[in-house]
């Protein structure tokens, strides 16, 4: 007996000793200090400092701390120069239009007082280097607008010209905005490639802060860049970005005063934070994200609205009836806690705001419209069937699947259920399902529901950043974007008039563009390929002591970090 027992004890002992040894080797201690420090809490590590790779949002957040682009956009939608000395325009001769070939070129002048944090001046060579790294066919990447660039030429150390293959209204933010920055030619290793070079994770700064330490999954520490070109800025000495995955823990840290900023604060957290003396919730001045219903005009599982039209939704009267029966105000108040603003057109905000009257909430009108479209309930089960409708066979039941994405959370799930109840009240049966965003939006080969047309109706949110809607409108409403995997015209809405207007919109003539966009707004209102319902909140919560934070739908909240201060 004793032989066994000694062994048993020794095994326990060895396990214990092993644990002690393993326990002793943890990660290294971080270092930051002083009262001149703010803490930003985010749920996951940024993939890198290069937002052009993964588009996670947290990469934009940290990129804004360390790197700059040629120009950026403020919350009101004004473009302002960052590394550029001034913005090239037609008026100052920086932009030259070739009407004959429908092309243009833009000549940029850089500030001459910008240095990388190692003291090397930032020059036109860095810009050309960045361009060449992005367009490299093997190791390159993609940033919005790069396809419109034909070539780039260096004029002198601080001047260069971008030649476009079209007239591109978004040219000011090509190497700027929230996605693109200028990379250091002398520091980044071009042979590692734009998408995977080490300088994407250990960046050299041209911006207000320098990355001092990054403990993966735990925190990042940034300290003031002594070589930053704006005198006296930034005011805050140290920024610690802590990775805190759980939303309620981040909220508690804000309330407790251990966190100074939590970005993309959700409706429920905003409601909880109201009345907290330490915390301010900063909503952005404009809204971007529009919750809308996508109608599939092609039969479920197909992508050709001509050959296989949707038996229910291909009739515009049905789409209108569905919109009429949705009580947007109740959804905003009950589920989005008053933070949702009703909208009914894509063109609801400056600079392209069009005068489209708000549709009425009118369930009785919706019923009448369905009756007149040939959808009636004759068997008394409360669900309409086709009796003389134009899009389906006699007796076809008005029943569809209604999908949303689970990642948004409770407000959207409740909205989905509420809409289904409202539809049932007018005789349309909706079967609900909720899927992950990666499944909903995946490419067709990956089983993406929208790209393969495998849906009837969906509800989710999108909207364009900044002030140039061209790319956004093209990808949602242009006929070519209805081809699977080329765009997001998931409803497969084909309209020649809209296409013609879209083709015209590639111009720098602002008055004319406004006119074109409002004509588009009319067509979209008549045809209703999507039903915009309301905007969702874009807000960031910060501590009372942190001053200067301005939430923006045009950029991430750290866009003006150099101007932030700590109040005593």
């Amino acid at each position, binding site marked *: 007996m004793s032989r066994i*027992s000694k062994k048993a004890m020794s095994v326990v002992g060895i396990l214990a000793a092993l644990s002690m040894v393993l326990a002793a080797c943890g990660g290294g201690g971080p270092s930051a200090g002083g009262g001149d420090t703010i803490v930003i809490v985010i749920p996951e590590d940024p993939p890198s400092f290069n937002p052009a790779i993964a588009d996670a949002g947290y990469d934009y957040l940290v990129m804004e701390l360390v790197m700059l682009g040629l120009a950026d956009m403020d919350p009101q939608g004004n473009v302002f120069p960052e590394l550029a000395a001034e913005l090239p325009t037609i008026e100052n001769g920086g932009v030259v239009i070739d009407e004959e070939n429908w092309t243009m070129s833009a000549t940029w002048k850089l500030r001459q007082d910008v240095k990388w944090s190692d003291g090397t001046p930032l020059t036109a060579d860095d810009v050309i280097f960045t361009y060449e790294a992005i367009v490299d066919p093997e190791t390159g990447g993609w940033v919005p607008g790069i396809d419109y660039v034909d070539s780039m030429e260096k004029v002198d150390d601080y001047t260069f010209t971008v030649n476009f293959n079209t007239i591109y209204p978004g040219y000011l933010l090509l190497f700027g905005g929230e996605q693109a920055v200028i990379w250091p030619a002398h520091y980044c290793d071009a042979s590692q490639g734009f998408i995977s070079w080490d300088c994407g994770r250990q960046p050299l700064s041209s911006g207000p802060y320098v990355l001092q330490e990054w403990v993966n999954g735990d925190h990042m520490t940034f300290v003031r860049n002594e070589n930053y070109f704006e005198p006296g800025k930034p005011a805050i000495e140290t920024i610690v970005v802590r990775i805190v995955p759980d939303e309620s823990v981040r909220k508690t840290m804000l309330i407790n005063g251990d966190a100074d900023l939590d970005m993309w604060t959700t409706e429920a957290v905003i409601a909880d934070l109201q009345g907290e003396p330490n915390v301010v919730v900063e909503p952005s001045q404009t809204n971007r994200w529009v919750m809308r219903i996508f109608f599939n005009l092609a039969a479920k599982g197909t992508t050709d609205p001509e050959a296989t039209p949707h038996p229910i939704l291909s009739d515009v009267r049905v789409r209108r009836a569905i919109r009429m029966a949705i009580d947007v105000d109740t959804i905003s108040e009950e589920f989005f806690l008053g933070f949702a603003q009703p909208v009914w057109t894509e063109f609801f905000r400056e600079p392209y705001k069009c005068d489209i009257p708000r549709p009425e909430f009118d369930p009785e009108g919706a019923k009448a419209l369905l009756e007149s479209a040939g959808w009636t309930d004759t068997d008394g089960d409360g669900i309409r069937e086709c009796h003389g409708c134009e899009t389906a066979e006699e007796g076809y039941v008005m029943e569809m699947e209604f999908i949303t994405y689970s990642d948004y959370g409770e407000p959207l799930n409740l909205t989905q259920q509420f809409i289904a109840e409202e539809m049932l009240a007018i005789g349309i049966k909706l079967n609900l399902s909720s899927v992950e965003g990666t499944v909903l939006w995946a490419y067709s080969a990956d*089983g993406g529901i929208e790209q393969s047309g495998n849906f009837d109706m969906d509800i989710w949110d999108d909207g364009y950043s900044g002030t140039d809607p061209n790319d956004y409108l093209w990808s949602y409403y242009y006929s070519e974007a209805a081809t699977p995997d080329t765009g997001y015209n998931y409803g497969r809405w084909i309209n020649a008039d809209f296409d013609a207007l879209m083709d015209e919109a590639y111009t720098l003539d602002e008055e004319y563009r406004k006119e074109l966009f409002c004509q588009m707004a009319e067509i979209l209102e008549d045809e209703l390929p999507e039903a915009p319902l309301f905007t969702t909140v874009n807000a960031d919560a910060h501590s009372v002591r942190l001053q200067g934070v301005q939430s923006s739908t045009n950029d991430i909240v750290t866009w003006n970090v150099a101007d932030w201060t700590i109040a005593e």
Partner: protein
Amino acid sequence: MTTYVARRLLQTVGLLFLLSVILFALVNLAPGGPLAGQGQSRHIDPEKVELLKRQFGLDKPLPTQYLIWLIGNDWMKVDIDGDGVAEGYGTRKGVLRGDFGFSFRTRKPVLEEIGGRLPNTIYLMTVTMLAAILIAIPIGILSAMRQYSAFDITVTTFSFAGQAIPEFWLGLLLILIFYAWLKNPVTGDSLLPSGGMTSVGAVGFDLGDRVVHLILPVATGGLGWIAWYSRFLRSSMLDVIHQDYLRTARAKGLPNRLVIYKHALRNALIPLITLLALDLPYIFSGAIFVEILFSWPGMGRLYYQAALQRDYPVLLAVLIIGAAFIILSNLLADLLYAYLDPRVRYDQS
């Protein structure tokens, strides 16, 4: 015994190979893909897709992808720039030569990603398991010794509760009490930190700071184990206590303390040790809820994030390495059992 071990190890290789095929297929065939949008953007732009597919190697048929994952592509010509002409050799070495590829999300080598998280998970989980064992063993002994006493009934009640309470609920509750409500009377700060492994601002190794950061995650993660191990030891003790040899030991006049610790406990521990060996894989895989709630940069979070974002290389590496750990832990449990109990024999010799 050597033959037995050799046979088991050989089986392990075959099993892992089979598992890798199944896991590779499952991961790739699950709906959704790494090319769908994340975070702020609902999509990635169509212009970017072809490039990404090529860079990720997703442009090839699945069997080819598996082959490249397994044995690499540095021996074959590949089309790098997307013009349809194969021009140079690939750079992947394949899993068999220790190259698990790079993360789709961060473009860092997968082993580097895992290497950054694994020590943190091992650190947390060994402390948790150790604490659980050290608390569970006395509880188990005492409640077996005093079966149906007030102590036993109380412990039994708490054990069932401990096994039933979900970690995420317990963790939030503990954060609420010890971080949000209770304050240190001297400094006025929160009694315990909300999470992380160390305080931001701590310099060098500070044992006190580390311990303070361990209390809540270890309590949250350990409660279930304490309940489970103590219940297990209690019943295994009760089995042993009624054996004949214990009566003999008592009959020959041994003091009760010696009977319990020398004869009963040491035998009752054998099944528990087997159980512990089977639980060893948790030291690798971590505890997802604890890591999320307490901002602990460990393997569970890495895996969870990779699953949500369809970061196939990371997902596969964690799954395969995890599977290897489970298989080896099972082997270890079997061997320990044979070593500790001479009645167990695996081969005839």
